[in-house]
Structures are given as structure tokens and as C-alpha cells.
């Protein structure tokens, strides 16, 4: 950024310009005056030298070489010199005789010491030059030739009449010599000095002062509106669009102010329009957000419904399949079980030769697998038997306590923490199925805490629901598995069928409740069940 503002620049520039103009005017004025004075001096000098050169008495005196005859012509010349500028005079005869040389007493230089510095016979007309003496004096030097010439015109005519000019030849108008006068520039120097100090310098000073004043005024009148505009522009830039500039003139500044006002007006309108648009957009956005939220909710509901439907369909399919094949599988498994039992009893009493000792081990395995298959079949059959709910108002806490008693807890290091809300309202539920759910959830939690841990069970009334929370400190479920845990036949356990949580979910749904799971691997899993209060 330039540290000088436009006002200082303008004043500086115009002041310099005006000072230059002032000095130039002063110089020009002085030069003109000096030239005028010099011209006047030259005119006077030429006039004096011509009068002297044409003075008949001078010619006569020169023709007879009589110095004494110059007294009257010189006196006349001095009378003509009203300004007393005549400093010296000199009369020379051809070829180089000085007939007369005199000077006024008030000059410092003696005329005799002044050089001639001209070739007398080459002077054909009055000439002028500046003559500087050794002691520094300067003179305006005028030299004029003096020719012998008949001055009486009647005699010229007589010569013409009596001899038809045969006795009179212009060429005989021979050069007698020259007259030289010197005019002192003292008077014009004094006048010039006076003019310089009384006119030129005051004039220049006045021009400079007036000029600077005018430049300040102009700078103020030009820059002030610009500065106002800058301030207003800053205000407009900071958002205050109500600023207007007062239009004081019809010039460019006035036009700028007018355009600025138009611009701010346009900006105000644009900002108003923008605000309206923004309001509309905000409203639209709000509406869109609402719609989006609703859409998300709807979508979630749809997804949920879809999942529920899929899950239901899956459960229905699984139920149908289970009820179909369970009976068919149970009977063969019963026969196999009996056979295995018989074989085990037979081989366990004595050693039979030729039979591998590992047969008993294999039979134990077969027996276990038959039990496991029966369990799966029982689960499937149990799931099929949950089809109908027998809801009656029941105390949830009681069901939980019973479930805790019935649930198989392999690890005794697990601490059960109860946090039941007292006077929890009765919930209309199928107590058996709900008890089965709680057992299932407690067993799952215990299975997740193989090295022991803490199972917290909370109940509380929440709005129109009763919320039951099972929080374990087990291994947790990964995010990928978490999405699938309510799907039928999905299990992470090696001996699971994958129907437990699916059945839980299905039963809760049947009770118009919800079941949600949050879990972090290594930290534990929290399951929230909400059951609606009786309406």
C-alpha cells in the first residue's frame, strides 16, 4: 500500500506544478521585461547613433577633422539622452584615426581603454553589440558609419540641372568614419531589479500561494467526496446497505456518487431478494429435512417391516419345515439312540475280540450327536409351538427372576446385578414365551462371558413401555454380525441352531414390543426390550 493518499499526492503534484508554473511565469515575466527594456534601450541607442551619424555638423566636423566642432552635436545628443544612459562616445576617421573619445565621469572605465573590436571600413550600417570591459562594466555598444553626403537637396538638384549629375556620383558618398556610443545598462538593471522585487517575485509568490490554495481546495472538493465514498464503501462492505452518498454536483464525482447510490440500491434489492430466496430455501430445506426424516423413518420402518416380514416369512418357513420334518427325524433318531445305547451297554460289559477298543469312543460320539440332533429338533418343535400367544397381565420382575433360576449358567464367576424399578406396572404378556426369551438372553450373555463377568439386568417404566435391559461384559458382537443376529438360522455358536434370537425377536414383535441390541467387541453387549403397557 502506498503510504501517501490521493489528497497528498494531488496537492504535492499540483503544488509542484504550480511552483514550476510560478517560477516559469516569474522567469518569463522577468525575461520579457528585461527583453523589453533591452529592446527599448537598443531602440534608443539606434536612434541616438543614427541621429549622431546623420547630424550634418558631425559629418562636416568629420570631413574637416575638427574635434572642436563636435561640442554642439554631442550636447544635442546628451539632451536627447533623457534617461542619462549615454556613457561614452567615440568618433573615428578612416582608416583608423580616433578623432574624439569621451566618457561620462560616472562610469568606471575610461573610453580610451576600451578596445575598438571592429573593422571600421566594414561597417556599412548601424550595428550593435554588448561591450564588456576589463573591470566588468558592460555597455550596449552602437556603431554607425558616417558617409560624406551633400545635405542640401537644392544643391543636389543644382548638380543635376547644371551637369545632369555628371559631377555628382552616389559612389562618391565615401565613408568618413564611424561614430560609436555606449549606453550603460545601469538604469535598466535597476529597473529590472525593481521589477524583479516589486513585480516578478511577488507575482510568482502570489501565483504559488494562490495555486497551492486552489490545489488544496480542489483536492478537498475532489478527494473529500472520494474519501466519503471510501468510508461508505467500507460500511456497505460491512453490510450496511442503507448508506447513500449526498450528490452535490453533476460532474464525474457526482456521477460516481449517483452510480454508488444506484449500486447500493441494487445491492439492497439483491440482498433482499437473496434473503427472501434464502428464507424460502431454509423453509424448503426444513421441509425437505422433515420429509427426509420422515422418509428415513419411513424407510427404516419399511426396512424394519421388510426385515420383520422376511424374518417372519423365514420363521414361518422354518416353522413349517420344522413341524414337517421334526417328527420324521425324531423317530429314526430315537431308534438310533436305542441302538447306540444297546451297543454301548454290550461293549462296555466285556472286551469283544476283534473289535477295536475305540468303538466305545465312537459310540459315545454318536450318542452325543444324537442328543444334539434331538435338541435341534426340540428347538425347532418348540419354535413351532410358539405360534399362539396367551397374554395375561404379569409381573415382569417375577418372570426375570424365574428365568434367572432356570437359565443354565456354566460359569459361576458371572455376577448378576439386578436393578429393577419398584412398583413396575403389570405387563400384558405370554409369560411362558417371555420367560423363554429371558432364559435365552441370559444364557447367551453367560456364554459370551466365558471368563466370567457381570450381567446387569434393569427394568424401568419408560413412557407407555416397560423397558428391560440385559447388559453383559462379554466378548461382544461385531458390527457385521450384529445386523444378522435376529435372522433365523444365524448363529455364531458351534452347537447352535440359530433360532434363539430369531424366536425372541418374533415373540417380542407378537407382543408389539421392540428388541434392540448395541454391542462393542471386547466390551460387551446391551439388549433393550420394550414392552407396551396395557392400553
Amino acid at each position, binding site marked *: 500500500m502506498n503510504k501517501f493518499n490521493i489528497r497528498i499526492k494531488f496537492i504535492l503534484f499540483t503544488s509542484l506544478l504550480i511552483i514550476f508554473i510560478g517560477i516559469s511565469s516569474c522567469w518569463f515575466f522577468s525575461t520579457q521585461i528585461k527583453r523589453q527594456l533591452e529592446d527599448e534601450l537598443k531602440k534608443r541607442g539606434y536612434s541616438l547613433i543614427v541621429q549622431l551619424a546623420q547630424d550634418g555638423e558631425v559629418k562636416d566636423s568629420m*570631413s574637416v577633422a575638427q574635434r572642436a566642432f563636435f561640442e554642439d552635436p554631442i550636447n544635442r545628443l546628451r539632451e536627447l539622452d533623457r534617461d542619462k544612459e549615454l556613457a561614452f562616445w567615440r568618433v573615428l576617421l578612416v582608416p583608423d584615426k580616433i578623432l574624439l573619445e569621451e566618457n561620462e565621469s560616472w562610469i568606471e572605465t575610461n573610453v580610451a581603454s576600451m578596445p575598438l573590436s571592429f573593422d571600421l571600413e566594414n561597417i556599412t550600417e548601424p550595428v550593435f553589440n554588448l561591450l564588456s570591459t576589463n573591470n566588468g562594466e558592460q555597455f550596449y555598444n552602437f556603431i554607425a558609419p558616417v558617409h560624406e553626403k*551633400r545635405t542640401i537637396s537644392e544643391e543636389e538638384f*543644382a548638380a543635376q540641372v547644371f*551637369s545632369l549629375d*555628371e559631377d555628382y556620383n552616389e559612389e562618391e558618398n565615401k565613408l568618413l568614419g564611424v561614430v560609436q556610443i555606449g549606453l550603460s545598462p545601469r538604469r535598466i538593471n535597476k529597473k529590472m531589479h525593481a521589477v524583479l522585487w516589486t513585480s516578478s517575485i511577488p507575482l510568482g509568490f502570489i501565483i504559488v500561494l494562490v495555486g497551492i490554495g486552489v490545489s488544496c481546495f480542489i483536492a478537498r472538493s475532489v478527494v473529500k467526496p472520494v474519501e466519503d465514498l471510501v468510508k461508505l464503501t467500507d460500511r456497505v462492505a460491512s453490510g450496511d446497505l442503507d448508506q447513500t452518498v449526498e450528490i452535490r454536483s453533476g460532474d464525474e464525482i457526482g456521477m460516481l456518487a449517483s452510480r454508488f447510490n444506484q449500486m447500493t440500491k441494487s445491492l439492497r434489492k439483491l440482498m433482499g431478494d437473496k434473503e427472501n430466496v434464502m428464507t424460502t430455501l431454509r423453509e424448503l430445506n426444513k421441509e425437505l429435512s422433515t420429509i427426509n426424516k420422515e422418509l428415513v423413518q419411513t424407510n427404516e420402518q419399511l426396512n424394519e417391516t421388510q426385515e420383520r416380514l422376511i424374518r417372519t416369512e423365514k420363521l414361518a418357513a422354518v416353522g413349517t419345515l420344522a413341524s414337517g420334518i421334526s417328527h420324521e427325524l425324531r423317530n429314526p433318531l430315537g431308534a438310533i439312540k436305542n441302538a447306540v445305547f444297546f451297543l454301548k451297554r454290550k461293549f462296555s460289559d466285556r472286551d469283544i475280540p476283534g473289535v477295536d477298543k475305540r468303538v466305545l469312543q465312537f459310540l459315545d460320539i454318536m450318542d452325543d450327536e444324537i442328543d444334539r440332533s434331538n435338541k435341534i429338533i426340540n428347538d425347532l418343535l418348540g419354535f413351532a409351538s410358539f405360534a399362539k400367544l396367551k397374554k395375561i397381565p404379569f409381573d415382569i420382575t417375577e418372570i426375570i427372576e424365574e428365568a434367572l433360576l432356570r437359565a443354565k449358567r456354566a460359569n459361576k464367576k458371572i455376577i448378576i446385578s439386578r436393578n429393577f424399578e419398584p412398583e413396575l406396572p403389570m405387563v400384558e404378556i405370554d409369560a411362558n414365551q417371555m420367560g423363554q426369551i429371558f432364559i435365552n438372553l441370559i444364557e447367551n450373555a453367560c456364554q459370551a462371558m466365558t471368563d466370567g463377568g457381570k450381567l446387569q439386568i434393569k427394568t424401568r417404566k419408560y413412557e407407555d413401555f416397560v423397558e428391560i435391559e440385559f447388559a453383559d461384559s462379554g466378548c461382544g458382537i461385531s458390527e457385521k454380525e450384529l445386523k444378522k443376529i435376529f435372522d433365523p438360522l444365524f448363529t455364531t455358536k458351534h452347537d447352535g441352531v440359530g433360532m434363539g434370537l430369531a424366536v425372541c425377536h418374533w415373540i417380542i414383535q407378537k407382543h408389539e414390543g421392540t428388541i434392540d441390541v448395541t454391542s462393542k467387541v471386547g466390551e460387551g453387549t446391551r439388549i433393550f426390550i420394550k414392552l407396551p403397557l396395557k392400553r
Partner: protein
Amino acid sequence: MIKIPQISYIVLIVFSILFPGANYAFSKGTAIIIKSQDLSAYNNVEAGFKKECRNNDITIRSIYNLNGKMKVGRKMVRNIEKEKPDIILTIGVLATTIAKEEIEDIPIIFCMVINHERYELIKQNITGISNEVAIESQLIGYQALVNSLRNVGVIYDPSNTGNIIDDAERQMKGIGIRLVKYEIKSPEMVGKALHALNGKIDALWILPDRTVVTKDSFNLIKTTTIENNIPLLCTNDVFVKAGALMAVFSDYAEIGRQAAQLANKILRLPSKDSLGIIYPDTYKLAVNSRTAKKLGLNLDTIRRIPHVIIYP
């Protein structure tokens, strides 16, 4: 052998040198000649005057030449007064006018003053000889060659020669000649005047008028008059030499002689008063034969007349 008369002359010369005032003692008077400038015409007058002075025992004390300079001339004339001559001869207008102004009590005889009336040379001590021959004498002279002079044209500037024209018109009318006048104010009007006079005049009379006669205008007058067969009549033989047909003029030496005679007469008078201004007592006729031939004029008739000069 030196003879006695010769010895007398030698003694007289030596005596004169040793005692210059003694010469005057034997003369009737002393004279000084003042010339306006060094012109051959003035020198002829001077020569004629000197010669006649010797005849009349008038001693020429000094001869001054003013060289045409007024101021110096005035100083010279003041010095002349100190010489106290008995009579002064002034030749030319400059010498005459200065003498008139500066000298009061010495008789002055002037001559060679063109149109003397312009200078009012009327004074008790001034006698003069007119430069112009009398009009009547001029006409007689012109008619000797040009017989049929009825209408004589003249170009003049009234401020210069108006007095001569008035006198001439009166005299010519008396003898049946009409003077056809054309006034001009500047030399540039000469051509117009010649054009205006052409066909109206039998001859053109040229006076010593400085407005009319200049170098350029005279050549124009000469050629125009010859082209239009107009005899050009002048008052000075100089113009005849230059191509004019003829002039009636006074001989300059004769003027000097006449002036010396006038001086002698004045010195004899006890009062030494002015004898007035008189015309030259003799005149001559100059004719340019070439111009006459061009104009078809026969010169045989005038060759017998005395004092006729035929140029070239």
C-alpha cells in the same frame, strides 16, 4: 638677358608676396567667391568672374567651397565676414542663402540659383543674376527652330515652379502661344502627365522643377517625346546633351563675366546698394542634331545664328 619689363614683374611679384595688402591699395576693391560645391558649371562661372575682375581691377581675396555642407558653410561664412571683402560673389543656392543670412553689410552678388524667387533673395545688399533666361528670349530661341509653336505643354509642380509658370503663361499669351499646363505632385505622375498632354501640344517645355526632372523621369520624358514627335524644349544645354531637342540657356562663363561687371558697378556706387536681380545679358542656343533629325527638323536655318551650339 632679363629685360626691364620682366624685372618689373619680378619685383612686383616679390613685393606682392612680402606686402600682400599693397595689392589692394592699387585695386578698386576686393572680392571673395563662395561656391556652394565643386561643379563644373560653378567653376565656369568662377573662371568668368575672375577674368572679368582682372579686367576691372578687382582683387579676388579668397575662394571658398562649401562642398554642399550647410553647417560648415555657415561657419566658413562667419569667418569670411572677418576678412571684410568689398564684395562677395556667391555661386549656387547654398552659398547664396547662407550669405544672405550671415552677411549684412557687404554687397553680395549671387548667380546660378535655380528659380531664385523661391528663396526671396530681396535684400539691400543683394544683387543677382537670374539663372533663367527671360521667357521672351527663350521663345525667340525656340521659334528659331520650331516655327509652329501654338500650344506649348508644360509639366510642373506648383510648389516649385508655380511662379515661373504664371509669368510664362502671361507672356506667352501676349504673343499668341497657349501654355498647356499639367500639375503634378510627385515624379511618379510624370508618365500620366505625358500621356495626358500627348496630342494636345506642339512642343513640351521642361523647367528646372525638381519634381518633374529626375534621372528616371527625364529618360521617360525624352523617349516619350521622341516617340510622339514632340520637340522637347529645355532651359539648360545639359538636357540637350542628354537628348532633348534644344535649350535656350545662359553661358556660365558669361554669367561670371556679367557678375564681375555688376561688382564693378556696385563698387563704383557710393551707397553700394542692391542693383536688383537681372536676367543674363547673353544667351546661347543648344540643339541636339540627332533628335532634330528624328523629329524631321532642318538645322540649316539656325546654323547661321550666332551662339548656336549643335550637339553632338
